[in-house]
């Protein structure tokens, strides 16, 4: 069965510091992988996605993620965090279950301190 694990519930970083959010997935086939961001009271915004090809994926807002099949991971990174990046981040795997639905992790809350 498909599942997504985000081991870090809450991360605090200083503005300008680098960021890495961890994501591990479990899925039998080649996964479709996603990172979404959710600001308080808002819906989900897609940051980036991986379907195939180059394992380093570039997204919006300066984010990137690397797919590592051997580690079943899809970690999100940003070299320099801005205060506006404070939000909840969700990793998701796309899996067929009668529909092209997404299975989400429990999220990582990012706090940015000045």
């Amino acid at each position: 069965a498909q599942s997504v694990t985000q081991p870090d519930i809450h991360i605090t970083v200083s503005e300008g510091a680098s960021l890495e959010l961890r994501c591990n997935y479990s899925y039998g086939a080649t996964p479709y992988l996603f990172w979404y961001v959710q600001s308080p009271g808002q819906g989900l915004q897609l940051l980036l996605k991986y379907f195939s090809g180059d394992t380093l994926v570039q997204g919006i807002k300066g984010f990137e993620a690397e797919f590592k099949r051997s580690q079943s991971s899809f970690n999100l990174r940003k070299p320099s965090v801005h205060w506006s990046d404070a939000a909840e981040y969700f990793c998701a795997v796309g899996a067929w279950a009668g529909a092209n639905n997404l299975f989400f992790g429990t999220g990582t809350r990012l706090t940015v301190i000045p």
Partner: protein
Amino acid sequence: DAGVTQSPTHLIKTRGQHVTLRCSPISGHKSVSWYQQVLGQGPQFIFQYYEKEERGRGNFPDRFSARQFPNYSSELNVNALLLGDSALYLCASSLQGTDYGYTFGSGTRLTVV
């Protein structure tokens, strides 16, 4: 262009009542999916509809139902509300629902008391 529109944004219901949530997809999108996000959790898939047909259903009880209209808008209905149904309900639309190209709405916050 308007994004995915959900209404109402907030509502409070009493246990045992019924609720209807509405979603208007992006113009041209024919597929609508519904997700439930309980506080502190990631969203969980409820339904997907395409061209008015149910394409997929998540692990939710029969109290949850949905439909899609000819203009591709959608309703999510929940009967016999329980306290545990309190959540943010997200609607996502996509062109055909086969490419994971979802755009999410801002959600409806349902509180059951």
